[in-house]
């Protein structure tokens, strides 16, 4: 376990003046998994990522790699896509990537091979000799992604990697990230696009006001949510009685076409069965379904 390629953020605290930006933030990013990092604006995602990359120092706590406090040397083998994008506008694309690869320790041949391969993968093969500033914004974003990957990083920290990418580039990016994950690279990425996070992530970290409010595998987070059910009954009947069953709380009631739907939450084993029995006695039950909350719901619940 100790030698495993995982990033652990341990009780990290960071203040900006009198404001506490991060309050004992702890979570892990495991290899072979894609970890989504979500939170409202200003929740502390970027600050956390900058601390992981060593661009910013924590006031307390530490970042660990393979179980030990991460060294500057090790951090240089990480790949980083900062929130604020940017490369040299007046430098040729391929040359730029080679330069960054070499700064990360690649030799001339490796740098050339990797930058060529990535440009090809990102469908920028014909733009290697162009000045970055002459590329379209979408293509500049792709180069930015290449810059984070060009030194074959052992871990990836990506701040909003999908923002600014066109739908095609998003798919290319997803493939690239999956490849990295399959190769055993721990990947942490932040995003506002919850559907995308839901589709991609294996693990999830939710932050709110500088605190981690939920962390774990997506499965886990869904399971540990309280039990929720949706009951569909034919006809226009009053379903207010559901709320009177012991251990049941109504979350939502609505009419959908020819049926009534009530969404309720139970905090007593067997309560759902009681509701069903009662419903069968009162009318025609079309459906009773256990609901798994969507990521958006988990998120809303967590930050509430």
């Amino acid at each position: 376990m100790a030698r495993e390629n995982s990033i652990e953020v341990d009780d990290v605290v960071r203040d900006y003046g009198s404001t506490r930006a991060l309050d004992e933030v702890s979570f892990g990013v495991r290899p072979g998994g894609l970890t989504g990092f979500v939170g409202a604006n200003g929740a502390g995602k970027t600050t956390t990522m900058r601390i992981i990359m060593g661009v910013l120092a924590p006031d307390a706590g530490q970042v660990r790699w393979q179980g030990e406090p991460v060294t500057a040397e090790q951090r240089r083998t990480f790949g980083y896509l900062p929130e604020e994008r940017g490369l040299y506008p007046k430098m040729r694309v391929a040359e730029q990537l080679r330069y960054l690869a070499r700064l990360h320790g690649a030799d001339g041949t490796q740098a050339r091979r990797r930058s060529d391969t990535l440009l090809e993968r990102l469908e920028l093969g014909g733009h290697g000799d162009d000045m970055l500033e002459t590329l379209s914004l979408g293509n500049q974003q792709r180069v930015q992604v290449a810059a984070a990957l060009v030194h074959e990083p052992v871990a990836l920290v990506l701040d909003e990697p999908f923002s600014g990418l066109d739908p095609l580039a998003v798919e290319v990016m997803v493939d690239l990230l999956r490849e990295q994950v399959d190769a055993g690279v721990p990947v942490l990425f932040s995003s506002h696009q919850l559907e995308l996070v839901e589709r991609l992530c294996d693990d999830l970290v939710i932050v709110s006001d500088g605190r981690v409010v939920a962390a774990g595998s997506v499965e886990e987070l869904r399971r540990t949510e309280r039990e929720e059910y949706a009951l569909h009954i034919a006809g226009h009947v009053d379903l207010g009685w559901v709320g009177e069953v012991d251990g049941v709380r109504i979350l939502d009631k609505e009419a959908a076409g020819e049926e009534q739907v009530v969404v309720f939450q139970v905090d007593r084993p067997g309560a759902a069965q009681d509701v069903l029995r009662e419903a069968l006695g009162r009318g025609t039950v079309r459906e009773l379904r256990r609901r798994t909350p969507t990521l958006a719901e988990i998120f809303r619940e967590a930050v509430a």
Partner: protein
Amino acid sequence: MSGSTAWWRLVAAREVTTRMRDKTFLISTGVLLLVVAGSIVLTSLLGGRPPSYDVAVTDRAGSSLAEVTQDQLRAQSGDDEAKVTVSEVDDVAAARAAVDDEQVDAALLPTDDGFEIVGRDEVPAELSSATQSALSLTSLQANAEEAGTSVEDLTAGSTLREDTTTSGPVSSDTAGGIAFAMALLFFLTAISFGIAIAQSVVVEKENRIVEILAAAVPLRALLWGKVLGNSFLALAQVLAVALTAAVALLIVGNLDAIPAVGVAGLWFLAFFVVGFLALASLWSVAGSLATRQEDLQSTTVPGQALLLVPYLIAVAGSDKMIEVTSFVPIASSLTMPARLVDGDVPLWQPIVSLLLAAAAAALLIRLGARWYERTLLQTSRRTTYRELMRGNRDES
């Protein structure tokens, strides 16, 4: 990677190649070299052309007088290339006609009691004076022989030697010119490459690449790469200027000036390197304080002032001011070489001055590196020097 050596080398190499591809930089360097070569050639064309006259004579006496006149002209003008070209014509009328047609500058015509020199509108004063000396000398020689003695005996004890109280290798006019040129060269090069350092830093901040770089290499390696890359370019430009000047002097044939400047020139290079390095890290701080190119106008003011004031002292200050400032680091890079060209500076003075400047450079580089590291990642707003002094932590 093998230590931070490789990092600063990569950074420095990028600085150099980026600049070498920058058209503005190439053009301005080309213009600078042209101006240097042009001003040397032009000065020589305007002031340095050896005097040369065509004179018409009618007989052998005239010819031999013209020959002696050439010697006198050379002695008087101090120019061994001075020339008096003789063309023999048939008679006085033909000689006067040649003058009138401007085929010759003057005619040397025999008279009863000597010679007559004839010009068109006027007789060139230089030629007239040389001819007068030549005539006195030849008649003195003839008269002396007749009297059974020689010119040497007659003029014994009349030798006048020239000496100067300062022992500088070149005349004070030339020294002044060279000192001015060196001060200007340091001033211009230090300012332009200093601002280039600041710009190179702010480009990385403005385009946010600095965060990627900061995650990849130690900030200090980034700073060193920039400083050394630009110092290398600055030194290369100075050497190119020196080489151009030497070639231009070679072309116009004024070789005497080269060895005279030599030793002072080597001191100049030493002071240049130390003075430039002392300021270099402060220029990078000027860049790291800024967040956009526009901010450089205000953040580079201290650097510009640190160069402008000593420059003004070097070109217009009193001897006393120059002497005092030649021991003040950075200012000494402008004023000490000027004093050295002028000569009469004990060897210990430039050595002490250079050591002081080197110590100051070491201190400023440490301070600059600290300020640079503290402000570089502050990309949201401009930091002020006052905040730096107070040592506030950045709040991003």
